[in-house]
């Protein structure tokens, strides 16, 4: 117990640049997989690399683990330059997407594998393995072979094995990739709980934005080997820096328009669909073209075509899907443009808008965000 308290205190005072990635670059003949990426991760932070496949997130993770040698750049962990260290000398452990449990070894021996390589005395190994089995609640399974475990249990063995050496940095490669949906949601929270308990600094690679948002303190959206945006899940969701990020994280309606009024804390943008009043200022000149991003859940629907001077569009319902906690509508505007709106079902008897019904979608000035590309 004292140990975790001490560990927490240490993390609270944790170095802001615990892991520093300095203009890392990786090329595979002509193809640039990772393009001059910079990143600083704080001690105890859970950081997610988010992107679709082929965006370079896995290459970056493999460079941290030491399986790939960067073409240029440095990696510094806790003040030590580890760029040229082989994987077996790095104070970093990784949990593989396929778990990569040794099939010929028992759960106990899988977890003890790394400790034995360290030359740890036997009694101490036994103690540490017990501790790890306790942590992941697999004590009764110590003598089993991996193939005698369920997927969720295998994942926990893989986690225990990567935690056993008490690495300075833990890497998780698509940690929930092989689990089914129901198990996934529960495991994400469990995993974060364990990571916090141990106080580990952790980098997660995932293509699942929900997973990244559930687990990470901060995340980076990657595309074509570059970071498009780094920030907390809230920052990235509410203040996307460009169209790709806005579209990748959650769903969004994007409107292209022109800046007509620009004040320090307020601006107006004219789009073909309507006039937007936006509750924040932008850096730019009048008349410049911009994009307005509007999340479906920040729009409300009213029956009939109502007249609003701004922040509203009129249309007809063309699609509706009832999702339980909310209902998703697709509204077609007279211009042919479709807008996605989600309405939270706060009332059990709420009457849905019928298909083909005329509706007005409107929103507050605090709902949209302007993207200056």
């Amino acid at each position, binding site marked *: 117990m004292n140990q975790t308290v001490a560990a927490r205190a240490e993390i609270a005072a944790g170095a802001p640049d615990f892991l520093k990635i300095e203009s890392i670059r990786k090329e595979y003949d002509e193809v640039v997989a990772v393009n001059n990426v910079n990143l600083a991760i704080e001690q105890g932070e859970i950081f997610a690399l988010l992107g679709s496949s082929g965006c370079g997130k896995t290459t970056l993770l493999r460079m941290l*683990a*030491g*399986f790939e040698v960067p073409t240029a750049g440095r990696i510094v962990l806790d003040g030590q330059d580890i760029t040229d260290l*082989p*994987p*077996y*000398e790095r104070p*970093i*452990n*990784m949990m*593989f*997407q*396929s778990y*990569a*449990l*040794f*099939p*010929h070894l028992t759960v106990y021996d899988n977890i003890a*594998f*790394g400790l034995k*390589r*360290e030359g740890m005395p036997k009694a101490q190994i036994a103690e540490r393995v017990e501790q790890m089995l306790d942590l992941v609640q697999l004590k*009764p399974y110590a003598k*089993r072979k991996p193939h*005698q475990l369920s997927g969720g249990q295998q994942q926990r063995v893989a986690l225990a*094995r*990567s935690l056993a*050496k008490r690495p300075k940095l833990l890497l998780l490669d698509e940690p929930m990739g092989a689990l089914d949906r129901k198990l996934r949601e529960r495991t994400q929270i469990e995993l974060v709980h364990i990571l916090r308990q141990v106080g580990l600094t952790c980098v997660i690679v995932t293509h699942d934005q929900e997973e990244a948002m559930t687990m990470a303190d901060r995340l980076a959206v990657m595309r074509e080997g570059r970071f498009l945006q780094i920030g907390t899940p809230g920052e990235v969701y509410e203040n996307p820096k460009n169209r790709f990020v806005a579209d990748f994280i959650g769903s969004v309606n994007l409107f292209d328009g022109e800046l007509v009024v620009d004040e320090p804390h307020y601006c107006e943008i004219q789009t073909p669909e309507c006039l937007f009043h936006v509750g924040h200022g932008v850096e730019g000149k009048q008349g410049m073209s911009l994009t307005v991003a509007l999340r479906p859940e920040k729009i409300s629907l009213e029956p009939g075509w109502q007249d609003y001077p701004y922040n509203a569009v009129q249309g007809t319902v063309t699609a509706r899907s009832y999702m339980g906690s909310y209902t998703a509508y697709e509204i077609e505007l007279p211009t042919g443009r479709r807008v996605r709106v989600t309405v939270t079902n706060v009332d059990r008897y709420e009457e849905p808008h019928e298909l083909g019904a005329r509706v007005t979608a409107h929103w507050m000035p605090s709902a949209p965000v302007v993207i200056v590309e």
Partner: protein
Amino acid sequence: MRRFPWLATSWTMLVYGFLYLPIVVLVIYSFNDSRMVTVWGGWTLRWYAEAAADQVVIDALVLSLEIAVATATASVVLGTCAAYALTRYRRFPGKGLFTLLLNVPLVLPTVVLAMVLLLFFVSLEHVFGFPQKGFTTLFIGHTVMCVSYAAITIMSRLREVDPALEEAAMDLGARPSQVFFLVTLPAIFQAVASAWLLTLSLSLDEVVISAFLSGPGTSPLPVVIFSRARLGLNPEINVIGAVTVYLVLAGLLLSSVWLARRAKQRARENAALLRQAKVDALATSAAS
């Protein structure tokens, strides 16, 4: 086929007959009390005694076994190295050429391979006075042929082993040599064992290379049998053949008994684990 079940049955009988009848005849005639191989003269064990006293045959058998064990071991070691290099390294200079060369002994007529090896050894001996024809040349010749078979057998298994296993071992602090012996080798062990058995049997009945590369007084068993068969068959040959059959049968029997026992043991282990799991589940549900 379903309309003529007798056709399928008789076809099967024919195939088995062609395959095994000669062996049965061979074994029966090894007990034949007659100088002529083809004439039945009653039962006897005298050829067995004669074969056991025949020092040439015994020596040849021992030599054959020695060569086979040495060849199988060397082939498996070299084959594993080759297979590892070809599957685990994405590219290295000469990879294409290396793959090609590894496959050459499979497609090259054995006579050509044997000729080439003979010429090579003779010229080597001419220049360096080494190696003299005998165990060394036979061992090298057999290994040249067998490495390919070993490499291919092991390579196909190695391709199935998830490279993440090796990366995980390295990630946990295992140096490359430890990774190989602690993770890779256990994963491919069955293929290595079967490659060893395969090359052992290939070496044991290799005639052509042996005939070219054996020296005076160092003829492996197949060469001895072949040369005696040319001089006229003698029931002693049948005895040698029959003994080989006995050995193979004993090997098969032992291995199947061992496999059955292991399967039973595994089933027992699984059943025990299942029981344990049920007990655990009951305990947890009782606790909550």
